[in-house]
């Protein structure tokens, strides 16, 4: 081997090894473990083939989780993406007041997810919560709810919190794409008499499609693995109504003590992530073919 190549491998190897040890190997191991049945109390593993997956197909809570993950993906995409784009376009300039506003919109991301969950749990409290109190003082008393205690509402109440926390982050990502568009394009369009709306539809959106796709993938993958907020606010309750795959996986592994079953749920999460990534790659490839 050439000396230069050897040197390159030496530089790359430590990172690659740590990555393989903590991520790649466990990933494969999870898939293997999903074909066994065992508990931490009785560590003898019994091979049951696809038994865990068969059971998943009849598990009501698993399907609640799957459905809720679907809500998380769809609602996060249709609310966070447009709002983040509006913010990036609206307050993306170098003006001092725009910089200040951007800092404000970004700040919920700096608050730890657990802290966010705690704040909003108190905020949503049915008896003494600040939200119901606010609604009442605005004369909207009929809108007060049990929020997190309401099985039909809990998931959506938490999705709203997630939107609050992450929109500023997506604004920053889109802003990076926005700043890559050369100013002279807008100047030329302006000279040709284009309105602001026309510039937005004809220049901004088409040139940002790629970064919007990347951001959409981030939102989708983030929605598949969402865990923290739900775990803090409802632990998947009431009665498993706000469960998602990640919370149900945690519940199965460390509360119900069913490790193999939990590994099967984790494998499903992995497959969903893979599907989302393949769809995204297809879309980007189409994009490149069109360009």
């Amino acid at each position: 081997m050439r000396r230069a190549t050897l040197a390159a491998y030496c530089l790359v190897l430590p990172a690659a090894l740590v990555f393989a040890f903590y991520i790649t190997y466990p990933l494969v191991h999870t898939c293997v473990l999903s074909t066994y049945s065992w508990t931490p109390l009785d560590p003898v593993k019994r091979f049951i083939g696809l038994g865990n997956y068969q059971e998943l197909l009849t598990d009501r809570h698993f399907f609640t989780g799957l459905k809720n993950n679907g809500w998380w993906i769809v609602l996060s995409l249709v609310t966070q993406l447009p709002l983040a784009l509006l913010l990036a376009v609206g307050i993306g300039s170098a003006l001092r007041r725009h910089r200040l506003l951007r800092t404000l919109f970004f700040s919920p991301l700096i608050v730890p997810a657990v802290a966010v969950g705690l704040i909003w749990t108190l905020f949503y409290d049915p008896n003494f919560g600040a939200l119901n109190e606010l609604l009442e003082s605005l004369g909207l008393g009929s809108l007060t709810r049990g929020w997190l205690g309401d099985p039909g509402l809990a998931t959506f109440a938490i999705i709203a919190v997630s939107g609050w926390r992450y929109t500023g982050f997506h604004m920053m990502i889109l802003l990076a794409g926005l700043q890559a568009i050369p100013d002279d394009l807008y100047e030329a369009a302006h000279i040709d008499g284009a309105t602001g709306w026309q510039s937005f539809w004809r220049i901004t959106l088409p040139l940002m499609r790629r970064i919007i796709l990347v951001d959409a993938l981030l939102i989708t993958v983030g929605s598949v693995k969402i865990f923290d907020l739900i775990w803090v606010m409802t632990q998947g309750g009431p009665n498993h109504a706000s469960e998602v795959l990640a919370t149900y996986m945690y519940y199965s592994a460390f509360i119900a003590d069913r490790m193999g079953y939990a590994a099967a749920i984790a494998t499903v999460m992995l497959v969903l992530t893979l599907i989302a990534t393949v769809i995204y790659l297809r879309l980007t490839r189409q994009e490149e073919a069109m360009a």
Partner: protein
Amino acid sequence: MRKLPIAVRDFAFALLALVFMLPIIWALVGSFKPARELRIHPWALPQKLEFANYLAAWKGSIGLYLLNSTVVTIVSVLAMIILSAPAAYAFARLRFRGSVVILGFILTGLLIPAHAVLIPLYQINAALGVGDYLAIIGPYVAFGLPLTVLLLRAYFVSIPEELMEAAVIDGAGHLRILWSVFMPLARPAVATVAIFQAAWVWNELPFALVFIKQQVHQTLPVGLLSFQGEYIAQWGTILAGVCVAVVPLMALYLLFQRHIVRGLTAGAVK
């Protein structure tokens, strides 16, 4: 949109920003109010500034959690950068067989959910008998590598070739060039990546929840979670704990925010 005067538009955005800040302001104000007042008048300003909640949070060992989180975050982020920088340098500047494949292999980590490796890592930690700190720092570093390598590589690519050639002529080795030419120039990228990863480690819940055995080793997220049960009626104490958890990161962010978009944009364009 052009028809709307800019001042009106900015006012609307400012109003929206205020609504966004409301829960944070509410939490901050609430942390100075006695529990009873907080429940009966959730929106009122405190009648007088009370530090009793912070005292109670301190007794609930929030200081210990803060210390644990600080140690874990600093060690993790340093290790991420020390491991990633040489790899990013090689991917950006050296031609070698398999570079694309190895980079792609590491970048898959951007998409992998923590839950997909939780059970095997739980077993590995138990089998190796590692301490609580090491049990979480290992996975934190590994999960931080992909983004760190990606952003540093993008920045290294943009550094002019001549600078590297001059160093090579002077007889400097790769590590030397990396340390004294690339790292100083890449400061915005390093700052960006450090702050993103620090925020991630500071906030991380699932690994900390599963891998930390002893209460004295708990990080802030797990510690705060236990506050929820311990101070069920003491809302002010919970909010005080929340505020303590937020302040260090907020300070870090405000200190470095100038760099953040710059570091990100360099990565996006290349």
